[in-house]
């Protein structure tokens, strides 16, 4: 699936929820259920620091696409992380580079991406793009 279509799909899923509580419950579910990264890859190098919750991000290149693995110590952050992985993993570097990210806004989680440094999400997205640029150059 294309990045844009995945994002639309996510927005569709969240549209079902009428209250923010339901949305967050879904997010928390996502955060709890998905084991997103192997413990062995939760290295210091892979840490993206927010001043409150941490994000770990690991990337591997495989047959022209990049696979991302990630985690966070806060469950809501982790829920959002899992959505970002779903969006960007298994995509081609150039598609990642050119993608514009709008689902977070649309499902009403924009505040988690503010220039605020409380969580590592903003830097995670930056890092995803950096990986894509690096891998596209190494090809």
């Amino acid at each position, binding site marked *: 699936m294309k990045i844009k279509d995945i994002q639309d799909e996510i927005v569709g899923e969240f549209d079902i929820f009428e209250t923010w509580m339901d949305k967050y419950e879904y997010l*928390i579910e996502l955060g709890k259920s998905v084991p997103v990264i192997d413990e062995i890859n939760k290295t210091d190098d892979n840490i993206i620091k927010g001043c409150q919750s941490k994000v770990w991000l690991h990337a591997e290149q495989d047959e022209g696409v990049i696979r991302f693995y990630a985690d966070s110590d*806060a*469950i*809501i952050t982790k829920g959002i992380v899992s959505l970002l992985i779903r969006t960007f993993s298994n995509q081609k570097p150039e598609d990642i580079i050119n993608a514009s990210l709008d689902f977070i806004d649309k499902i009403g989680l924009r505040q*988690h991406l503010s220039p605020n440094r409380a969580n590592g999400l903003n830097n995670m997205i930056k890092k995803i793009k950096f990986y894509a640029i690096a891998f596209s150059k190494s090809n």
Partner: protein
Amino acid sequence: MNVLKNIDSIRKDFPILNTSINGNKLIYLDNAATSQTPNCVINSISDYYKNLNSNIHRGVHSLSQMATEKYEDTRKKFKSHFNAKSSSEIIFTSGTTHSINLVSSGFSKFLNIDDEIIVSQLEHHSNIVPWQMLCEKTGAKMKVIPMNNIGELDLNEFSKMLSAKTKVVFVNHVSNALGTVNDIEEIIRLSHSVGAAVLIDGAQAVPHFNVDVTKLDVDFYVCSAHKFCGPTGVGILYGKEEWLNKLPPYQGGGEMIDEVSFEKTTYSELPNKFEAGTPNIAGVIASGIALDYINNIGLGNIKDYEDHLLNYATEKLLEIEGLKIYGESKDKTSVISFNIKNIHPYDIGSLIDNLGIAVRTGHHCAQPIMDFFNIPGTIRVSFCFYNTTGEIDTLVDALKKASTMLS
């Protein structure tokens, strides 16, 4: 009953208390980060720009005269409030952080490689990092007053650390992370007994109770206007005249000089020596209005009422399953730091934000305290005199809801 009689009319003075977040009325419990601003302070800023905006101290025209007078009258207000001996002992800066850096940077003149400086385990980064920079520059060593499990400083240990080598001791009056009120009278007394200077970081004290620098016999006392209902960008530094005269100037520029030539520059007298450049004139004047505002309610009344809120909230919060409070000193003010079970503070903070409740989560710029308790952070609620027990009830409900969702 410990209730401010006119709490309703006080709340009306703060327009922001009427805003809604996500459809819920704002409940603002992040006052230790910054307090809200009453109409009189907001209006004072508008009035300044509408009627007297002008650069101060050197203009002969009327606007400049009037602005200068208001600015200097504000200095006198703070002089009286803190019971300083002279207005020259009050320096306006851009914040507590700036005030501390002004002092710590000046101390490089007095420190040698064998000297020691003493900090407490309870400090805000703003009262640690500038002194670390000083140590790096001078080779002086930093010692740390330890605290016990309930967040009180161990003054017994402190007295053992003191020696003729100790040159300066810097401790906050109230801890922003735990709410502990430190026994600064004793800290000052002990420090002076070995001839060390003392800087007290009063950022979290000035909003909540009276401070008398002469009675305390403190050498430096610092705070920020934005924490006592004033505007952003204004700090106050009290310094004993003899110390301020000894300290070298911090920044160079206009205002702080007497005569300038390329060969030789001489500096102004106090307080101008430390106020280089155009100050935050509108902000300083508005800070004086904020000071008037809290004095009008009365810091005695404020303290009584906030103690009441603190006790009420502590009791109610402890009813929440799995809630642990960090910082249980006998003497505390206006701050409660806690965690619920193993839930990450960020998760709680995010959820209750959707209910309109603003609390702070994280390390509160006091990582050494978090390291002490071996936690990544806490949830911190902090009160101002415009908060109510009703708001605390709503908070407790919201925390229960969030805890259920996250468990």
